[in-house]
C-alpha cells in the first residue's frame, strides 16, 4: 500500500521536478574590469601624453584596469575613427572586456576629444560616442574627464580622477594655508596666502567656491574663496566667533559653527551671508556638521553627554539622535555621498582611528586603524574612497584609501603637516 502510494507520488511529481530549473549561485571575486585602450588618433603636434593621463585616470577608479597594449592583436592606435570596425573576438581573445577608441583634434586653441566605448564581450557599444574639449593647457584634466566618463559606462558610477582635494598645510612653518591638489596628489597649489592660520576648507556643490576658516582678521571668521579672479569675501558679518563652515551638498546653504555669548552651536546661513537659522540649541558645544547627501539630515558632534559623541539631526522634524555610544571621543563625522555610511574618527588610547557607522547606528566597523592617529575622513564624490590625515610616518600627511578594501596611498609629499582634507564634488 505504502509502496503504491509512493509510486503514485513519484509519478505525480516527476514532471514538476523536471520543470524546475536548476539554480546556480555564483559568488564574486574581487577583480577589476580589463579594458583595452587604443591610443587616440591625433593630428600633428597634439599632445601625446593624453594616453598616459587617460589610462592613469581609468585605473584611479580601481574598478577598471587597462590591458597592456603589447598584448593587442588589433592595432594599438585608433585608425579612422569615423568608420569603426571592431573585431570583438580579437579583443576578447586577449582578455579585454572593453575597448576604448578615440580621436584628438585641436581646433582654435581648444583640444577636442571624441571617443567610443565598447563592451567587447557582448560586442556592444556602451552609450553614445563621447565628446569633450578643453584648453590646450588642460590636457591632463581633459584626459581625466574622459576616463571618469568611461569608468561610469562600465561601473554605473562616474570616476573621480578629475576631482580635487583641498587641504591645509603649514609647510613646516607657523602659519597654515589652504591648498588644492588633483585627486591623484599632483598639481598642488596654495590658494590662500595671508600668513595667518587658515583651516577647514569646504567645497560648494559646483566645486567653484571654497568656504574656509581664517584668523587673518584677528578673530576666527569664515571666508569664501572663488575660482578665478573674483575676490574673496567674509561670509558672516556679525561679531560672533565662527569656527567652521560646511557647504550643503546640493544648494547654497552653509552650516556654520558659531559661538554666541559663549555657547557654541550650529547655524545655517545662505552663501550670501543672509538667512541665518539656528540648528542646534544646547548649552554644550556642538560642532563638525556634516550634511546627508539629500541635505535633509545633519551629523554633528556634541559633548552634551559629557564626552564628544556623534549625533544626527533630522532637519525637518528637529529630532536629534545620538549615534555613537562606544568610546570616549568620537569626532569628525563625514556622511558618504551615497548616504550609506558616516565615517568618523574614534579615539583609541591616545590616537584616533577611522570608523564607519550606518546613519541609523545599527552597524559600525573599523576602516583605517594604523598604529598612529588617523583622522579627518573626507569622502570622494563617488563614495568609493576616503581621504584622511595620519601621522603614521611622523608628521601629519594625507592619504587616501579604497573603502572597499585595497591600498592606502600617500597623497602629500610636503615639508610640513597636512590636515583637513576636503574632496571636491565633480567639477563639471
Amino acid at each position, binding site marked *: 500500500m505504502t509502496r503504491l502510494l509512493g509510486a503514485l*507520488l513519484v509519478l505525480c*511529481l*516527476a514532471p514538476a*521536478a*523536471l520543470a*524546475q*530549473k*536548476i*539554480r*546556480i*549561485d*555564483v*559568488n*564574486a*571575486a*574581487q*577583480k*577589476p*574590469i*580589463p579594458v583595452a585602450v587604443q591610443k587616440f588618433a591625433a593630428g600633428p603636434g597634439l599632445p601625446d601624453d593624453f594616453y598616459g593621463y587617460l589610462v592613469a585616470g581609468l585605473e584611479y577608479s580601481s574598478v577598471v584596469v587597462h590591458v597592456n597594449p603589447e598584448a593587442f592583436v588589433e592595432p594599438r592606435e585608433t585608425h579612422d575613427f569615423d568608420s569603426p570596425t571592431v573585431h570583438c573576438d580579437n579583443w*576578447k581573445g586577449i582578455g579585454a*572586456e572593453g575597448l576604448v577608441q578615440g580621436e584628438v583634434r585641436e581646433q582654435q586653441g581648444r583640444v577636442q576629444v571624441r571617443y567610443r566605448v565598447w*563592451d567587447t*564581450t*557582448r560586442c556592444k557599444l556602451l552609450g553614445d560616442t563621447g565628446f569633450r574639449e578643453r584648453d590646450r593647457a588642460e590636457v591632463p584634466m581633459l584626459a581625466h574627464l574622459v576616463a571618469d566618463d568611461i569608468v561610469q*559606462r*562600465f*561601473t*554605473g*558610477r562616474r570616476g573621480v580622477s578629475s576631482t580635487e582635494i583641498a587641504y591645509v598645510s603649514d609647510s613646516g612653518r607657523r602659519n597654515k594655508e589652504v591648498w588644492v591638489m588633483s585627486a591623484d596628489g599632483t598639481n598642488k597649489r596654495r590658494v590662500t596666502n595671508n600668513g595667518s592660520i587658515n583651516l577647514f576648507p569646504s567645497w560648494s556643490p559646483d566645486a567653484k567656491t571654497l568656504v574656509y576658516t581664517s584668523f587673518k582678521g584677528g578673530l576666527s571668521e569664515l571666508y569664501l574663496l572663488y575660482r578665478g579672479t573674483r575676490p574673496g569675501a567674509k561670509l558672516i558679518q556679525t561679531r560672533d566667533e565662527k569656527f567652521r563652515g560646511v557647504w550643503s551638498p546640493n544648494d547654497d546653504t552653509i552650516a556654520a559653527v558659531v559661538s554666541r555669548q559663549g555657547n557654541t552651536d550650529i547655524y545655517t546661513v545662505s552663501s550670501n551671508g543672509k538667512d541665518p537659522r539656528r540648528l542646534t540649541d544646547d548649552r554644550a558645544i556642538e560642532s563638525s556638521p556634516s550634511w546627508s547627501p539629500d541635505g535633509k539630515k545633519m551629523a554633528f558632534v556634541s559633548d552634551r553627554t559629557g564626552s564628544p559623541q556623534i549625533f544626527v539631526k533630522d532637519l525637518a522634524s528637529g529630532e536629534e539622535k545620538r549615534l*555613537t*555610544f*562606544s*568610546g570616549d571621543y568620537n569626532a569628525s563625522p563625514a556622511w558618504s555621498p*551615497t548616504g*550609506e*555610511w558616516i565615517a568618523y574618527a*574614534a*579615539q*583609541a*588610547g591616545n590616537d584616533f582611528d577611522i*570608523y*564607519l557607522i*550606518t546613519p541609523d*547606528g*545599527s*552597524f*559600525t*566597523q*573599523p*576602516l583605517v*586603524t*594604523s*598604529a598612529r592617529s588617523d583622522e579627518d575622513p573626507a569622502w570622494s564624490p563617488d563614495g568609493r574612497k576616503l581621504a584622511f590625515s595620519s601621522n603614521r610616518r611622523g608628521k601629519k600627511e594625507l592619504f587616501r*584609501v579604497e*573603502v*572597499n*578594501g*585595497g591600498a*592606502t596611498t600617500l597623497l602629500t609629499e610636503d615639508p610640513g603637516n597636512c590636515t583637513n582634507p576636503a574632496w571636491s564634488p565633480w567639477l563639471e
Partner: protein
Amino acid sequence: MSSFYVPAESLLQSRAFRRLMAFSLAGHVGVALLLFFHPFSRRSELISASPVMVQMVQLPKPAALPKPPPAAKPIPPKPAPKPPEAAPPPPKPVVKEIVIPKEPAPLAKPKPVPPPAPVEKKPEPPPPSAEELLQKMTERVEAKEAEQAAQNPAQEAPATAEASPGRFDPLFSPWIAGVKARVRANWSGASVCEGKPLFDVDVGAGGQVSDVKLTQSSGSPACDATAERAIRKSNPLPAPPQAGTYEIEMNPKDLQ
C-alpha cells in the same frame, strides 16, 4: 676543582649510574612516544586549519585587525541583523565544498562589504570555511525551496531529489561546482554590484552557451553587464549532464 672530576669510564662501570641511565633512557623514550602519539590528532587539526591561516595572512588590509575597536561594537539597543553565518557543520559533504575553498578570491575583499549589506559580517571577518559556504548555500537553497513550497504547496514541495542543487547529487553537483568555479573566475568588476542579477542560460550538451537572458536585474545595468560578461566569457561551460536552460544567480555579496 679536580675533585669533582670523575672519569667517564668509571662512571660507566658504576651500577647505580647504569641504572640511572636506563631509567633516563626509558623516561625519554616514554616522553617521545607520548609526544608522538598523543598530539597526533591535534597536529592533524593544525594541518587542516592551515589554509585558514594562510588566508588571514593574505588579507591586504592592514586596517581591520590591529586595534581593539574602541567604538566599534554594534550599538546594544539595535543588534545588527547578522544572518547566522557560522552554523553547525554541514550534514553532507558535497563536491562544491572542494571547489570553493580552493579559490583565493574571497580574500581579495577582506574589507567591509561596500555599502548596501554592510550588516552582514563585519565585526570579525574570519575567512569562511568550506563548510560555512556550503552551509550557506544549502540554507539558501533550502529557504528558496521552502518558499516555493509555500507558494505551491500541492505539487512542488517534495521536488527535491532530482534537480535540487542544494543537496549532493552525483549527476549535477560536480557539474554545478564546475560552473560556479568557472563563472566566478571570469567575473570582473563585481564590486560595482549591490544586488544579485539572475539569468536564464541555455547550455548545450557540450557546454556551449547559446543564450544568456537577464531575468531579474540587480537594479544596476552596469552590474548586470559585469555578470553577463562573466557568463559569456565562461563559454563553453563544462558539459552538463543534460542540455537545457539553467538559472544562474550572480551574488556579489558572498565575496568574503
